């Protein structure tokens, strides 16, 4: 009798462990997504300063600067979905990358300390966002595995949990990010 009770308690504890683990993984996915959001916000906050610093020097890049400002405005606007925000961030990234390439034509700007600081902070934010996206994808993969595999799938069915799609890895995340190349090309 005691033996049966011990087995029953062990099964119960194991079951609670699996159940809690599933909930925690679901929360982890949400948490990982909010980490991307925090990183994006941090990156968008750099833009006004960057635009302000470069516009004094880059007289011929007015269109790019206006585009960056507009994209930032859209990304920070109300009711922007997370996927739209990520798409806007990708466009901002491309525009800023183009801007950084043009810096070669402005030697005074290249020597500006404030610009150099912004440049390195921008690179840092690129890698932080890449890390946050990878973290999100890892959380989703772990969650999806639990939802699809035994014994997690039993609880997942009861809770109505379904698999989630991972974010597509951007080309830059797969490459060896080398900011020197990025800025000096």
């Amino acid at each position: 009798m005691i033996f049966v009770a011990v087995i029953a308690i062990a099964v119960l504890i194991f079951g609670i462990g699996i159940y809690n683990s599933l909930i925690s993984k679901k929360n982890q996915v949400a948490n990982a997504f909010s980490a991307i959001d925090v990183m994006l916000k941090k990156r968008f906050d750099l833009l006004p300063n960057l635009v302000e610093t470069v516009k004094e020097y880059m007289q011929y890049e007015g269109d790019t600067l206006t585009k960056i400002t507009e994209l930032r405005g859209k990304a920070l606007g109300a009711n922007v979905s997370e996927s739209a925000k990520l798409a806007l961030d990708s466009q901002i990234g491309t525009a800023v990358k183009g801007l950084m390439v043009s810096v070669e034509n402005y030697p005074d700007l290249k020597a500006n300390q404030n610009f150099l600081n912004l440049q390195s902070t921008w690179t840092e934010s690129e890698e932080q966002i890449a890390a946050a996206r990878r973290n999100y994808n890892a959380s989703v993969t772990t969650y999806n595995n639990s939802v699809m595999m035994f014994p997690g799938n039993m609880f997942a069915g009861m809770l109505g949990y379904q698999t989630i799609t991972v974010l597509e890895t951007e080309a830059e995340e797969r490459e060896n990010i080398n900011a020197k190349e990025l800025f000096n090309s």
Partner: protein
Amino acid sequence: MTEDFILTPAIESVLAELEVQRKKIASSKIQGWGAIILGVACFAIGAILSQAIIAIIGFIMVVPGVVILFRISDDINQYKYRFKQEVIGAALNSIHQNLTFDHENGISESEFINAQLFAKTPDRYHTEDLITGKDEKTVFYFAEVHAEYKTEMQTKNGRQVQWHDILKGIVFSADFNKNFNGITVVRPKDFGSSIGAWFSENIYSFGDKDIVQLENDYFNKNFVTQSSDQVEARYILTPAMMEKISDLNERSAYCISLSFINSSVYIAFPLNNNYFEPPVFDTLLKPDLLDEDMNILTFMFLIIKELNLNTRVWSKE
């Protein structure tokens, strides 16, 4: 790790002087230990045959042996000191002028524990041969470390203490090129850590660091990565960095351990040899004398370049 190191004329001249000292030490050691071994043998034979005279002769033979060994201990220390200072020190400068060698110091036990390279805390700790340097923007240092833990077993003959290695090798530390606040550790994957990782991932995570599942298969197969911050761990361990660490691991004899803590990277390399020591029973006058020492040194020095630690495009200077 197999490049030949060319001895400079200055080093060769010091080695020629030390060779005389070495021969004297080797001969004294042979005499001392010879007398002790013979004496102990006589003593044992005397005891077995119940011949007091043989036992006494044996005992008397041991005394001069001990005296000889005692008298040459200062010579040995001086010999080692000169070899490390004048040979290793000079050889270091020929690799890089910024390198300094302090054979009496190493990485302190508290720093070793705080680096969290290993799960076990040492019960016995020895460190020596500290080498420090700076390559462009990166300050680095490394030292030989022998850290052990003990286990005690109750046997028929009483309590038996056994010592086990945590690390016998080199601990390397360098200023990391990115800012971070948390702790990330990368340890070799063994059966225990694999079970722990599975439990932590599927049931419950104990402690302040969670398992980090990374995308690199080689990395996941060989290491267990834990961090106090999942995003920060990936910020440090970029796909490129994982490739470089994997490459470093492939070139090492045993699986390495890494930790990223207090803005520094620590790497532990388990090794078989005790480096930077002069031979006693082998000649100093052979061209490949310093090859192994210099190869390990060059390997450590190259880590900075291998891991791109001088690339400071991030906000850390």
